[in-house]
């Protein structure tokens, strides 16, 4: 999100971003989980779990909106002012691999959570609207909490010994 846009964003506009950020993060985790399922990779479960968390946060953001009494504006996907090509908590599709292990999956998620944290922090730092600053700060703190959690999990899932991405079977021609 360009700082200018967010500096001037209303609470409703900010919450619309927050809701979509979490919603898209959840959908991305689902998408990754589906993909891993297709390739029989156990990290599927991990991505499902992440999707669940993101959905919880989305509901939370929706709850805030209700509490604020705000009707969230409907934006078209490209009308959101994200600082990156996608909403910041969407795990990068390009960084996945069908043989990825739990460590790599968690690293991927960690990057996403940190991006989300950075996003909220930036809004918290630059918004002209006090309420927005306050909400963004809270959200940033939550994201930081997630990131810490992921960091902890990562220690429990060290990189697998055998270079996991060393593909033993050549790709095949299906047509």
């Amino acid at each position: 999100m360009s700082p200018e846009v967010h500096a001037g964003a209303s609470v409703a506009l900010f919450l619309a971003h927050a809701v979509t950020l979490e919603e898209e993060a959840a959908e991305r985790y689902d998408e990754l989980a589906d993909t891993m399922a297709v390739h029989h990779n156990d990290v599927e479960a991990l991505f499902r779990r992440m999707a669940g968390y993101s959905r919880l946060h989305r509901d939370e953001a929706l709850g805030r909106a209700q509490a604020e009494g705000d009707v969230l504006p409907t934006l078209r996907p490209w009308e959101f002012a994200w600082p990156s090509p996608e909403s910041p908590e969407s795990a990068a599709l390009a960084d996945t691999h069908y043989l990825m292990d739990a460590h790599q999956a968690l690293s991927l998620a960690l990057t996403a959570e940190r991006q989300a944290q950075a996003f909220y922090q930036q809004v918290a730092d630059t918004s002209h609207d006090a309420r927005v600053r306050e909400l963004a700060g809270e959200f940033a703190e939550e994201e930081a909490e997630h990131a810490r959690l992921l960091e902890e999990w990562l220690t429990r899932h060290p990189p697998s010994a055998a270079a996991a991405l060393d593909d033993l079977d050549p790709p095949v021609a299906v047509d």
Partner: protein
Amino acid sequence: MTPSFSLAVTGSGGAGVMTAGQLLLDAAALAGRYGLMARSFGPQIRGGEAAALLRLADRPVESPDDRYDLLVALDWGNIERFADELPLAADALVVADPGHGAVPAVIAAQTGRLIEVPLTALAREIPGGRPNMVALGLTACLAGLPAAAVETRVRRALARHGTDSVTAAIACLDAGRQAAAAHRRARLPVSGDESTADPTTALDRWVLNGNEATGFGALAAGVRFCAAYPITPATEILEWLAGRLPSVGGRLVQAEDELASINMCIGAAYGGVPALTATSGPGLSLMIESLGLAVAAEIPLVVANVMRGGPSTGIPTKSEQTDLNIAVYGLHGEAPHVVVAPTGIADCAPTAAWAVTLAEALQTPVILLSDQALGQTRTIADPPATALPAARRTAFVPGPTDPPTAYRRYAHTPDGVSPMSCPGMPGGQYTADGLTHTTSGVPSTRAEDHVGQLDKRRRKLEHHDYGARWGEVHGDGALAIITWGSATHPAREACDRAAADGLSVRLIALRLLSPLPVAQLEAALAGVRACMIVEHSHTGQFYRHLRAWAELPRPTLAWHRPGPLPLRPGEILEALHHLQAQQEVAA
């Protein structure tokens, strides 16, 4: 009947199932065994699920068996997909890694002999170890392959990855073998003595798939030009040729589509350079119009069509024999051409070579009908007993007194074959044409020219002496099977088993599919009282083709079923017994 041992290694793609399977087959070759390996996988380009399907024996074997004796599962990812490709023998042994969950019902229901080996855990104990190498050691041991052969092969294959890799792999093989030994009671009966194989002969044997064999046969017969567009399951023919043609002065062009590739071949062949393209059903469909041109303009060329499940895009990775109709009858107008098919994987090389010689001798397109089962199954086979045939074209030689315009490219000759010039030959200029033409190649709409050229083109095919390669006949029973292509080996094994049951069945496998060698076929059928037509199709295309041209014994039973599952000897044997029972009732 060939005593043999069938085994499958399955797991998620990337687990190294295919690598393990291939090394196992190679090791079997080094150990003097025969065998074959097919692959099966899911729709994913990479990953997904994979199965290496092997059969090992002491005598040449090219048919899959009815059931598998051993299943080694690295994990259970989507095993349901393979369930019907993996029929297990009642006493089959299933080796599973307990780390990957319970044995799925679809497997457990088939056999009671399950043993658990922690493949992943064993591999983890070895630095750089991999579960698939543990599985390889274990499987080889259960299959009765000498450890030395496996080790030799693995050392060789991993050499370029450095000594650490090799050491780790060897350790894995050992761990696997020990795990197998730990289940000594589960060790399966294997045929043959590990030490009997004559190592010299064994090392001369070929380990290759039908696609490579096809490429080799074509090149050996003289093909020096290939233009093609990739398509599964034919691409390996092209890849093989792409790597080798330059070394014999030839060229391969990757074309923009099949319309281009067939026409580039026509151009090269018109230029005197024997040409081949390889494709599968969808690509063959696109070549149809230009094949008609090659017929009319009398241009020699070979299309190797590797059949897959149809219609339309169908199932590209599975086998069927359902492009027979289009290959034989697919051209518009009256367009006689030649269709041949190898009767097995090893036969792909001589039959491809034959196809090239026929094309060149008859100046006509030849369609070589291979299929996914032949093309992509790797086998250990004896090299061809005789040298492959080499192509020869009847070339134009100007008479010393001929005026420059005397050359009649499409002159009527007794055998219908007219001497052919090609650019560069002075006095041989003519215009090759797809329009009805005179003997000089000038367009004509007159009846005498039309009929004259139609007659000539039919004559050259009908009068040609196709020699002994038209087909194979085995046995002399009063019951006969007529079959072709990849159905041959399963059918032949069914006949062998029937013989073991005391039922003598004659096997007739055609290599020449069109023009149908009616006289040879009817001679081969002499004394046959009942007949069965065996093919891998839904509606019996081969049966209809035979009916259209030949007198078949009555009764003749049409036995066929479509892909994707391969034909197995047992089902053919069952149909044979059915036919025999009918015969007895009738008698």
